């Protein structure tokens, strides 16, 4: 049981420096039936519609990656595709829920470990949402929980603010 406990602890101290070169533009959560659960735009440079479009197109890419075979069995899917000045990253949970994070392409190199960390946080927020007994998992409505929205906001904002310090 000890092993299960330890991986729920997070190295809080190192987080800030890790996140320094990533600027999240948008976080999208897509349900197992490819229904939109939540989408949040963190910028004012692009309209929301653009991110809806990106989320939609990324579903195809994700499905392509899944059918590629069992050798790519990690839940983290890596860079899905790049589009103009945006880079789209994907993550697929074992329960077929898809997370899509859109970043702006900067000069700095984006490490996979950093992205995994962000997706882990999103997944944690989502798990907490699922474990809420008042949330109907089989419903196709988008998520309206205040706690969940606040969690996603803090993930997006913490990674957008850091960039301004550089």
């Amino acid at each position: 049981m000890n092993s299960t406990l330890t991986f729920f602890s997070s190295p809080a101290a190192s987080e800030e420096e890790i996140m320094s070169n990533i600027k999240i533009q948008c976080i999208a959560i897509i349900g197992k039936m490819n229904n939109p659960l939540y989408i949040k735009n963190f910028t004012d440079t692009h309209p929301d519609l653009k991110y809806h479009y990106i989320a939609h197109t990324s579903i195809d890419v994700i499905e392509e990656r899944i059918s590629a075979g069992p050798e790519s069995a990690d839940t983290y899917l890596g860079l899905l595709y790049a589009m103009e000045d945006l880079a789209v990253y994907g993550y697929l949970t074992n329960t077929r829920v898809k997370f899509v994070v859109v970043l702006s392409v900067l000069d700095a190199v984006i490490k996979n470990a950093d992205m995994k960390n962000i997706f882990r946080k999103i997944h944690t927020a989502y798990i907490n949402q699922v474990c809420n007994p008042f949330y109907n998992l089989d419903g196709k409505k988008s998520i309206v929980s205040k706690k969940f929205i606040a969690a996603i906001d803090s993930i997006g904002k913490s990674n957008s603010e850091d960039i301004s310090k550089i």
Partner: protein
Amino acid sequence: MFSLLLKMSTVLQSASSAITPFFTSLASGDESSNSASLTAGNTIKPVYVNESCLEFLLMEMVDLMFRTTADSENDKEAVFYKLEMLGYQVGQSLVERFTRERPRFVDTLDVVKFICKELWSIIFKKQIDNLKTNHRGVYVLQDNNFRWFVRMSTEAGGADAAKRAVPYLWFPCGLIRGALANLGVISVVVAETNSLPQCTFQIKIAKS
């Protein structure tokens, strides 16, 4: 349900010796928000759920469903449905949390194996004793020492006890169905027992 369990556990934690780390990690959200209350200094204190409390809750839950259902003597289906749906919800939440660090599943057998080994260990602290399949979508899971039956018996014993234990299998049935459903396997789960504490679960996977 879990918050209730936790409250109960904190009250009774010091009073009882039978403490098990059942659902331990469910209680601890890993990121900073929740961990503050769980950490003392740098060491993480596990949140324990008292096993006796859990058993009392399960007992009361079945009893409550019978009491709150009109004409429960003749309408066992309604009670079954209620308990099964409760289990379904819990099963769904459980797998969402416990498959996070796991590579993706290859096929249905992989999913069923996960239920037999990992999920069973998390809930009952043991693995399924026997798994059979006909390779056409039917899986039979046999547990020779089902943990929630260990302390059950009746005066008549034998078949009578087994018969009266049946409603207590409906919640775990739903649990398995919920776990499978959230992993993308739609199924029907039925359970039976001939003599306590042995029981079998039969999973019929719907053809897609």
